[in-house]
């Protein structure tokens, strides 16, 4: 980068080309007052406070908009400038109520700070009574536009960073006011309620209602968000040891001051919710009744001890910390003697782990989240990123703003389609032929990266041969995507380097999920888009710690760090460390565990923080399996639908009540910090597990804190070898991080693939297991929505989120709706071979004709009663993304 020498207030400063005068001054520690400036936004030049005098330039250029030039001589603080600033600020103040004492932002207000800095003498101009509107009925935050100084930060963050464009400037002159198009309510304006506007507001115009009168925080603690796998860093604001507000943390590599509605507004309420479990419960006479910890733990240890190692299983949790997952699997393997350990990763990215491990050697996101912003092309397939991983979607928007090409492949018209250069809309379940068609175009037109293929990959010829079956005619016939669009997508992806590829459950939750993942890997290798910044194969993980739960070996076939249980040397290492002999047989997967329970081969399950009755396919079958068990233990923070079936319920502490680490989707291990004492008698899951393990005579469960557990993890897990709490104090570390001096690995496979060479895989097309027919003419696909998370255990405790969405909807195309006589808002019955559920109709073109869409957040419309358990042969993932249904109008409205 070009170095530029400038002088600010007689101080010589070296800046970089492209920097503004304001940025250079900030870097040099020179304060220039600003109100409309925001580091995440393009310069606006509205508040006019950052004016300067620059030699050779006319007038008073604003430092936020003036780029530095070599040799510039700048003055920021002359008497004349201060006088002008006082004049400008006086104008601003006449347009803002003098009501600091009664303002919720008193003490946090930037206008106050700037006024104090500039030093106002007197206000001689009259105050302007604006009578601007105030809005106090939207979820989460109030808007009082009398407090607004029109710095535009809310509007710009909404447009530039969040891409929501929900609010804008309206009116002109002194009547100018921030509002929505045509004054519609926020909920109809495209607002995502992410709160970025609230965070960007320098005054009391936008305030979070719940914290308005809480005053100033007395401390803040950084922790990791408990919702999705993005792993946003949150800054918890505490006053007298109570969380008063949750803010996005600014200085980190993951979310950089942004967060979604769930993280911003959806935490405090569930943490302090009256329905939190505060005491252990034991089922007596068919009813769960309160019990003491001793009672409950004694019952669990004595009952579990009665079962043979092949009769018990553990369902671990992707919501728990790494340390908790580590002790959980250690408990299962070392104390219960079983490898029957699995968790919900089976239902999300098991094909990714299996597929990518096979061809790359490592089954995780190859690049980092912020690296996506560097891409020249982004191919998004099988992920509704802006709803499921909202903050990751912001990186996509950033890349698009910088000129990157965006290709979306999705049968549904997802939000990001708005920003796409090209949208392919294949038939559900036809990803393999579509991706193979693109690969074929790339090969036929010689757009591949020959050097990369030759030097870094193997098995190309076999793969090339398998492309023979995928002529564009065939592919078009199968996928329904026009030939020219397939070819255009191939061109864009192959010729705009680096290209990043994002995918999620739309790829994996199929009976051919592993093939889908392999097709993606083929495409990336073919174009050399692996191992460099802005490129990569990037599976977006769903749960906050699903990556970590896998890393920690909460899987039936691996110890922590993906060390095979069947590998003799590995097993010996763990036997030595844990001082036990270990079971060499591979355990059952999640879906197999329920089948086994159904057939009474599994008799007891210890389940932690999952809610399979809502989250797993063919929910009726799951319920029956759980009911068939002789003994079910559930650890959770709420009495979930699954916990109601338990014999013993153990109350867990929530994420703010325990220490630990989560590993996010980009392999970054980040701290979770205890900020308040556990609610009631709830306890951290690691403590509970250790108590049970010790109660059953287990050795090596005498941990005093999670930091000690992490040290044991590091000792036994090469990819976590260099990780400890002291290092994590400064921020997260991305594995592989093998030694204490290793800086972590932002990009995988830079020189060599983890397995040596990247392996091309020849593929064939296999249709979905259940295709529509006369009785079940529609295809049901499933997913998440922005305003809720998973089975709603946490988000449905949040009033504002319920205001935004409170019921299960079936999205149905107008063509299908017309044919069935359905109008928007009708109550429908959705029926599959496995059951039926009620849900409200949402008639929308977002769903293609022939496809209906439902989420799985609402127990009242328990979508997974309908879904199919047909498994992917390799990864054993059920086909949650496609099953055949029919729809009937319900007579109850």
């Amino acid at each position, binding site marked *: 980068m070009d170095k530029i020498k400038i002088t600010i207030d007689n101080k010589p400063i070296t800046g970089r080309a492209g920097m503004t005068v304001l940025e250079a001054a900030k870097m040099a520690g020179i304060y220039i007052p600003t109100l409309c400036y925001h580091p995440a936004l393009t310069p606006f*030049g*509205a508040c*006019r406070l950052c004016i300067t005098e620059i030699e050779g330039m006319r*007038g008073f250029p*604003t430092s936020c908009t003036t780029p530095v030039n070599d040799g510039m001589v700048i003055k920021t603080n002359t008497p004349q400038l201060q006088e*002008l600033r006082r004049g*400008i600020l006086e104008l601003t103040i006449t347009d803002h109520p003098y009501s600091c004492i009664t303002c919720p932002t008193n003490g946090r207000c930037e206008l106050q700070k700037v006024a104090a800095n500039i030093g106002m003498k007197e206000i001689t101009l009259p105050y302007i009574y604006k009578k601007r509107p105030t809005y106090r009925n939207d979820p989460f935050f109030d808007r009082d536009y009398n407090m607004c*100084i029109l710095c535009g930060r809310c509007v710009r963050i909404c447009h530039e960073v969040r891409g929501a464009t929900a609010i804008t400037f309206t009116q002109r002159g*002194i009547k100018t006011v921030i509002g929505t198009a045509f004054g519609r309510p926020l909920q109809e304006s495209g607002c995502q309620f992410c709160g970025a506007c609230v965070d960007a507001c320098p005054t009391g115009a936008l305030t979070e209602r719940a914290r308005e009168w809480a005053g100033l925080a007395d401390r803040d603690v950084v922790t990791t968000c408990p919702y999705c796998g993005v792993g946003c860093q949150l800054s918890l604001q505490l006053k007298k040891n109570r969380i008063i507000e949750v803010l996005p943390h600014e200085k980190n590599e993951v979310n950089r001051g942004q967060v979604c509605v769930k993280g911003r507004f959806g935490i405090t309420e569930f943490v302090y919710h009256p329905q939190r479990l505060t005491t252990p419960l034991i089922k007596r006479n068919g009813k769960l009744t309160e019990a003491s910890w001793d009672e409950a733990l004694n019952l669990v240890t004595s009952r579990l001890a009665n079962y043979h190692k092949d009769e018990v299983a553990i369902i671990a949790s992707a919501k728990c910390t790494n340390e908790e997952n580590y002790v959980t699997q250690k408990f299962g393997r070392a104390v219960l003697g079983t490898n029957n350990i699995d968790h919900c990763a089976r239902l999300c990215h098991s094909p990714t782990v299996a597929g990518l491990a096979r061809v790359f050697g490592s089954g995780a996101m190859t690049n980092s989240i912020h690296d996506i912003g560097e891409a020249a092309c982004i191919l998004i397939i099988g992920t509704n990123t802006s709803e499921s991983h909202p903050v990751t979607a912001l990186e996509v928007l950033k890349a698009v703003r910088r000129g990157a090409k965006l290709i979306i492949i999705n049968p549904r018209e997802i939000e990001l389609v708005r920003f796409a250069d090209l949208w392919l809309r294949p038939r559900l379940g036809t990803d393999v032929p579509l991706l193979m068609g693109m690969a074929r175009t790339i090969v036929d037109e010689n757009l591949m990266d020959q050097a990369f293929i030759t030097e870094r990959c193997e098995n190309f010829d076999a793969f090339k041969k398998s492309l023979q079956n995928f002529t564009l005619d065939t592919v078009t016939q199968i996928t329904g995507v026009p030939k020219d669009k397939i070819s255009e997508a191939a061109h864009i992806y192959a010729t705009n380097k680096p290209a990043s590829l994002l995918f999620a459950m739309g790829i994996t939750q199929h009976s051919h999920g592993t093939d889908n993942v392999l097709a993606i890997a083929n495409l990336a290798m073919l174009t050399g888009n692996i191992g460099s910044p802005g490129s990569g194969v990037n599976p977006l993980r769903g749960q906050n710690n699903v990556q970590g739960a896998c890393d920690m070996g909460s899987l039936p076939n691996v110890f922590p760090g993906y060390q095979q249980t069947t590998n003799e040397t590995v097993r010996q290492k763990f036997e030595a460390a844990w001082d036990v002999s270990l079971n060499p047989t591979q355990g059952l997967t999640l879906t197999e565990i329920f089948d086994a329970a159904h057939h009474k081969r599994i008799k007891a399950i210890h389940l932690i923080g999952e809610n399979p009755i809502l989250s797993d396919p063919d929910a009726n079958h799951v319920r029956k399996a759980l009911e068939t068990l002789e003994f079910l233990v559930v650890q959770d923070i709420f009495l979930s639908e699954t916990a109601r079936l338990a014999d013993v319920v153990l109350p867990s502490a929530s994420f703010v009540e325990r220490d630990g680490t989560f590993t996010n989707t980009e392999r970054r291990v980040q701290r979770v910090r205890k900020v308040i004492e556990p609610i009631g008698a709830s306890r951290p899951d690691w403590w509970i597990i250790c108590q049970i393990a010790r109660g059953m005579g287990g050795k090596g469960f005498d941990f005093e804190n999670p930091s000690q557990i992490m040290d044991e993890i590091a000792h036994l897990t090469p990819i976590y070898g260099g990780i400890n709490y002291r290092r994590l104090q400064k921020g997260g570390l991305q594995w592989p991080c093998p030694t204490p001096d290793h800086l972590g690995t932002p990009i995988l496979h830079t020189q060599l693939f983890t397995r040596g060479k990247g392996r091309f895989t020849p593929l064939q097309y296999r249709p979905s297991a259940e295709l529509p027919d006369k009785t079940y003419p529609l295809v049901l696909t499933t997913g998440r929505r922005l305003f809720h998370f998973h089975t709603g255990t946490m988000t449905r405790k949040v009033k504002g989120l319920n205001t935004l969405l409170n019921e299960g909807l079936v999205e149905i195309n107008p063509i299908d709706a017309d044919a069935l006589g359905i109008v928007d808002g009708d109550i429908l019955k959705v029926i599959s071979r496995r059951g039926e559920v009620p849900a409200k109709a949402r008639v929308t073109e977002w769903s293609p004709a022939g496809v209906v869409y439902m989420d799985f957040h609402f127990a009242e419309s328990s979508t997974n009663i309908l879904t199919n358990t047909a498994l992917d042969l390799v990864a054993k993932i059920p086909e949650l993304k496609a099953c055949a249904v029919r729809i009937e109008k319900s007579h109850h409205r």
Partner: protein
Amino acid sequence: MIFDKIRKQAIAEWATLQQSQQPRILLGTATCGRAAGAMSTLEIMNQELARHNIDAIVTQVGCIGLCYIEPLVDIVKPNRPRICYSSVTPKIIPQLIEDYLIKDNPRPDLALGTIGDGTIEGIPRLLDLPMLKPQVRIVLRNCGHINPEDIKQYIANDGYIGFIKAINMGPERVLGEIKKSELRGRGGAGFPTGQKWEFCRRSPGKEKYIICNADEGDPGAFMNRALLESDPHSVLEGMLIGAYTIGATHGYIYCRAEYPLAIERLSIALNQMREYGLLGDNILGANFSFDMEIKEGAGAFICGEETALMASIEGKRGMPRPRPPFPAVSGLWGKPTNINNAETWANVALILQKGSEWYDGFGSQTSKGTKTFALVGKIERTGLIEVPLGIHLRDIIYEIGGGIADGKQYKAVQTGGPSGGCLPASLLDSPVDYDSLVKAGSMMGSGGMVIADEDTCMVDFARFFLSFSQAESCGKCVPCRIGTHQMFAILERITRGEGKLRDIEQLEQLSQLVKTTSLCGLGQTAPNPVQTTLRYFRDEYEAHINKKKCPSLVCTRLINYYILPGKCAGCMLCLRDCPAKAIVGGRRLVHIISQEKCTKCGACLDVCPERFGAVVKVSGEKVIVPSKPIPVATSKALKNKG
């Protein structure tokens, strides 16, 4: 070459038309003509022609700029000079047709002047008339003479010759020619056009845009409207030349939606250009592909500012952004963009047609060429004029404009629209060019010229322009949004008689603050009317504040109506007419106006018979009146005593 054929054909058709043995009638139906009733005139004319079975060629043309006597109808009889008739209302039509077309009486009493060769007894040559003689109509040369909806009439009058020359010269030489002409931007700032083009031409990038700014929003300005309605191709040819020179691929004409006729005629013109191969791929085989479209503004004055205008084209809210980057580097959609005013583009076509040396013959040392102005306000002859730059204000106002209306005294002229300045009589002999106007505290602007007479209160005049600027501020930057509003509030206060001693000082300070710290040209120039009136008419401010007196008797809160007891005849006329029922009195009783009830409408003054002259309008002074109606005789006695 194809164009040669088109041109030959157009010239031939034009000649045939000129020598037609049918009578020809040209009717000015631009918006100004229509406002004066030209469409009714046209309707009646067609009826009358039909009634008399006269086979005449009726053509709707644009505006020749004589707004004060519209509708204008020109009649050409074979082998006779063209006669221009003014104020041709539908009533006159039957007589005129009968007299001239049937009986061959040219009606010199109705005629304004003759156009072209030949004379008619009793009718002067149009161009010899005082309002036209000092004008140099080169940009407006075709206005009122050709059919703006017929590209062939434009071509027949040397249209698109400039573009043909340009493609033969090559972009570099065209650029040189424009630079040599020293053409400066007619939007008001006067930036050298050639230099602007050069920045954009040299700016790297495959995609470039040119824009015609036709978002004419100044109160009282209508130069661009008349030009676009009367001769759209002269602007479009300029754009074509500009696009070719700069290397632009696409053009936009940003025209305010309040100009529906201009938009209609522009879109007809664009279609004809496409039809004649003057837009599209590989235009006239010159390996130059270009197209353009019209973007309608939605009524925001600020969208005349170039960066706001581009934001508006992009579908964003029209708000200016700071420069740099300048449009030439990063403009529309982030691509190099050149934006010029409609009149500038029209000049371009002219310069290429006739050459920069010819162009050098017009204008002053620093300001070459001509400038169009909309002459409005308290002036005898309002209209659209075109004068060589450097002409003196006095010549415009007294020669062309015919002086102040109703024989009143001149007080000031506001040039440059709402953000221009008010120039007093002492500056009447200063030249009208970019630099002199700025030196006087005003600016050229796009060409509005509003004349104020002795009855205009300059505080109120400034208040009016500021009310416009503050309402049209986009609201983005603090000095403009709040500063202009605070200034406006002070002016309101002063005109209400609530001015304070420090108001003048505060106005001066605010003016300076808003001027130096605003983001865009709107804010930077909005204080001009205040600053110039403070500079040249400070005594009026002082009278308002110190004596609570409006010397021009305009500010209603500062004026009072009284009935002079010594003059009132007790006729009851004013009492009956007073809409506020503020007058008490009775037959042969002296009437009294209740100052509390009076709404200052002036009806009493209007109805009081001249022979009595009993009602007076005063400001800052009190007239002693009886406390209740007394007999008229008594009041006479009072008067004698007094």
